């Protein structure tokens, strides 16, 4: 899924707001909560870029609303050692849930669930936000 401005053509920002986070892979499910710093935004796109090669198993990623095992926003998989540094993997958005109108004032977070591989590897996560279609 390539990013195309999706939900609001007449954006109050004009362009997406972007959050980044560098994440190390883990051999057990690990939760990384990222605060949403803006009001009335929807997550419309997310991708990763590998910065250290992933080792012996795929790295499964889920973006969830507010808490570990919260409602799924999007999922992605970074393949194991075949994935070289510089590889981009895009998230598949969970239908409907990305338009969730997250808010700073509600202390909403995006929880990144990281599971696998055997523990080596690193990537940078990019989250694109747009003004909520419900704002």
């Amino acid at each position, binding site marked *: 899924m390539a990013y195309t401005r999706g939900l609001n053509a007449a954006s*109050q920002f004009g362009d997406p*707001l972007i*959050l*980044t*986070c*560098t*994440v*190390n892979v*883990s051999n057990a499910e*690990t*939760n*990384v*909560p*990222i*605060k949403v*710093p*803006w*009001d009335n935004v929807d997550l419309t796109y997310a991708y990763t870029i590998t910065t250290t090669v992933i080792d012996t198993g795929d790295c499964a990623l889920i973006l969830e609303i507010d808490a570990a095992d919260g409602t799924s926003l999007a999922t992605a998989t970074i393949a194991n050692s075949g994935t070289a540094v510089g590889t981009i993997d895009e998230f598949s958005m969970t239908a409907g849930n990305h338009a969730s109108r997250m808010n*700073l004032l509600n202390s909403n977070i995006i929880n990144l669930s990281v599971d696998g591989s055997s523990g080596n590897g690193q990537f*940078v996560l990019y989250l694109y936000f747009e003004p909520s279609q419900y704002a």
Partner: protein
Amino acid sequence: MVYTRMGDRTSWNNPIVVSVYVNNSIAETNVPVYIPHNDVRCVYIYSLVTTAIDATAAMEVDFEYVDSGGTTEFATMQVAGSSTVGTVDEATITDALTAAKMNQDGYIQIEIDGSSTGTGAINIWFYFEPIL
């Protein structure tokens, strides 16, 4: 310190956010981060552990503003030893006057002074608002 928006909401809707990934360090290590805008104040800083901090000591993090006027510490934070992945820590603003006016001709210096093995890593997010 919980972030609550300052200023006039009608002319400013959302903070400018800058993020940086920093490794823990045995000895004092300085990481400069450019401020991408003029006439902003740093209103909130928090960190997220992405590699567990080792058990030997806390990861001390100080934030300094550097410009032609010198170097001034304006915020501090401590990530406890043994902190697990996903741990959130918020910085305390210690010099509100310095935090209240920053420019592109200055930069923020992150001073890391870690545990005795230096294992661990964090992401740091800075929230800026314009000076109104």
